[in-house]
């Protein structure tokens, strides 16, 4: 009986405390936006960073940020809607697609949000956006990269980030640019990709584009992810006499492969990595100077702050508040809310169709973004066509943006020196 009482009081406490978190002070018109992110579970730390970024964006729109030259950053909410404030309602999807759909439905039907943002995980984004599609509510996805999402041709789905296919396209655009600028054309390309969906899909696109663009792939290795040794793979790479290696690996494999390259003296002119393990801070920490010269695809880099004053201003604001810099994820989430708010403001209404129409007419120039993009403009599938990745190179233990050339902070080092000449 005792514990029944305890249980009951726990429930009572839950019921009493609940409304505190969702106190509904309706002093001014509010624009409710639902944000579905992984706030618990394995990706919780990433989820909380994105949540912080979104809160900063909402705060800038509602209360203003001094000296930041960005549309809507003057404060005072959305001017076309009588200075209505943005209110974010967060939901936790726990990395579970079913929970994502359930929460999307709850936010739409109970909280009456006018639009949804989320969900980082591609699989959760797919179920949550399906719910939005059913109810006819705009869904803006700032950071999921599975190409499939926009292939569904949903009416209510918009994605600001470039997707995995585009990132591979970026590799070849980079090679073309560098070829034109420095007269370097890799003659023998080797591929080393891990064997889950990401690596396998990447391999397919890399091969396809190489064929179309006249590059010669001399070796293609798909290795089991989380391998404990890569000796035979590296021997094959060495034997292929490749001058460019394209690699997709998660952290552990990325470190292991670099160690094995050094051991066996495999040094192509360049290693072009596909983000993930190579972008992890731990990669540079573990390998120290052996990590130098690696090129990696990225979506954001801190040195972009020196190229665009806006990026520095916003990053300073974020760093001041949360004691850390933006990264590829949080910067994209931040941008997502601004794109959505811009559309709602232009719509001048919270009617779903008006917002959808405004989103589809979005045209934000790159200078108003904190991303290294040319802008935001959606095609018929809802994909932003002006997004792009960047290529960074580890130079003296730090990431430096080396491509696209118009925003590069350092000159690329190519070819990378052999292991015994470092």
């Amino acid at each position, binding site marked *: 009986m005792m514990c029944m009482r*305890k*249980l009951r009081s726990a429930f009572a406490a839950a019921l009493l405390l609940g409304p505190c978190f969702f106190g509904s002070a309706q002093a001014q018109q509010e624009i409710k936006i639902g944000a579905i992110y992984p706030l*618990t579970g394995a990706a919780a730390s990433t989820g909380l960073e994105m949540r912080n970024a979104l809160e900063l964006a909402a705060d800038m729109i509602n209360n203003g940020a001094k000296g930041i030259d960005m549309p809507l950053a003057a404060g005072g909410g959305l001017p076309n809607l009588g200075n209505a404030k943005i209110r974010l309602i967060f*939901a*936790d999807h726990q990395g579970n*697609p079913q929970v994502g759909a*359930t929460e999307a*439905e709850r936010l739409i039907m109970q909280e009456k949000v006018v639009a949804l943002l989320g969900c980082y995980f591609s*699989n959760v984004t797919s179920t949550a956006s*399906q719910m939005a599609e059913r109810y006819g509510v705009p869904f803006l996805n700032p950071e999921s990269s599975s190409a499939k999402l926009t292939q569904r041709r949903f009416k209510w789905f918009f994605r600001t980030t470039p997707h995995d296919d585009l990132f591979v396209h970026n590799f070849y655009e980079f090679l073309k640019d560098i070829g034109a600028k420095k007269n370097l054309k890799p003659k023998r390309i080797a591929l080393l990709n891990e064997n889950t969906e990401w690596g396998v899909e990447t391999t397919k696109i890399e091969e396809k584009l190489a064929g179309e663009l006249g590059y010669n792939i001399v070796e293609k290795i798909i290795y089991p992810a989380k391998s404990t040794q890569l000796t035979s793979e590296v021997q094959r790479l060495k034997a292929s006499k490749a001058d460019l290696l394209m690699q997709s690996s998660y952290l552990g494999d990325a470190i292991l492969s670099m160690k094995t390259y050094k051991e066996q003296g495999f040094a192509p002119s360049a290693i072009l990595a596909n983000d993930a393990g190579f972008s992890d801070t731990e990669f540079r920490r573990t390998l120290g100077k052996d990590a130098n010269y690696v090129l990696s695809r990225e979506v954001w880099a801190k040195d972009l702050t020196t190229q665009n004053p806006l990026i520095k201003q916003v990053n300073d604001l974020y760093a001041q508040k949360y004691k850390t810099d933006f990264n590829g994820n949080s910067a994209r989430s931040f941008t997502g809310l601004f794109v959505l708010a811009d559309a709602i403001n232009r719509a001048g209404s919270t009617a779903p169709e008006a917002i959808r129409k405004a989103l589809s007419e979005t045209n934000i120039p790159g200078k108003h973004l904190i991303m290294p993009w040319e802008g935001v403009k959606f095609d018929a599938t809802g994909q932003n066509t002006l997004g792009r990745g960047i290529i960074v190179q580890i130079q003296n233990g730090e990431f430096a943006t080396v491509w696209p050339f118009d925003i590069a902070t350092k000159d690329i080092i190519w070819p990378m020196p052999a292991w015994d000449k470092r």
Partner: protein
Amino acid sequence: MMTKKRNSLIVVGAALALVLPFIVSNPAHQNYLILVLMFAQIGVAWNILGGYVGQVSLGHVAFFGIGAYTSTALLISVGLSPWIGMLIGGIVAAVFGVMIGWICFRFKGHYFTMATIAVAEIIQVLFTNWEGVGGAVGLYVPMDRQGWGVMVFNSKLPYYYIALGLLCVTLLGNWAIEKSFLGYYFRAIKDEPEAARSLGVSLTAYKLVAIAISSFFTAMGGSFYAQKELFIDPGSVLVTSLSVKMSLVTILGGVGSLFGPLVGSTLLTGIEEATRQFFGGSGMGIDLIIYASIIIIVAIYYPAGVLGWIKHLLRRDAKTEGGA
């Protein structure tokens, strides 16, 4: 006396279940009801093997996933109606269950449980790397065609009644087992395996019967899930946490009892959704802490499950009534 009471309770419950979606009209709330029914159904299916025969499986998600993948792949590739796909999925899962059982029943107790976890993990890896079923990207159930033929609806009501129907069918299956010789054999295998064997009950054969029935119904639940969420991938229909949830609703409600999983699912889904709704957005994991605490409290104070506790209370009341 008890059975009469129980029967009238069942009739009232069934009537209530039929009209409930008309009382609860908000689709988000109807969705919770569907989740309750869905997890109750797979709990009931799990209960056949885990509850009656006492073979605790933490790999049942493999059957759930096989069901989901079979019906969805057939729908996408040859346009087969999910109603038939669901049955085929059930049969595939049952055959697979027998194969797995053949190997895993060599282990006893905890070792059996561990073996089932391993099997489910292997299945997850296989599906993640199997291009033909979408690999890690997963499969989408096409939304363009709707209606009873393809089991895709905009409204929640049809899903609710399908879930209710599935639960009823699974409950009926369990009830029939309980009443037949199978029920006695199963309980004998659970409580006195040596005695059962000495009386000529083949332990392995009947355990295989149990796993076949159990995986058949679990797979049907998987097909239903796919039709409801319209998207499946290894991360949603082959995750270990789902196996845990199947066993949890049953253990919490009452292992080896017909309606235990329904009670467990109502409680668990209720707590889960309520705590997440109130605290989930805070990002501090409070919802999960409360959720876990409640499970621990129930496990400590009501080891026979909530249904067992309710029965105990009823019996005590009956006794005091008799005494007065």
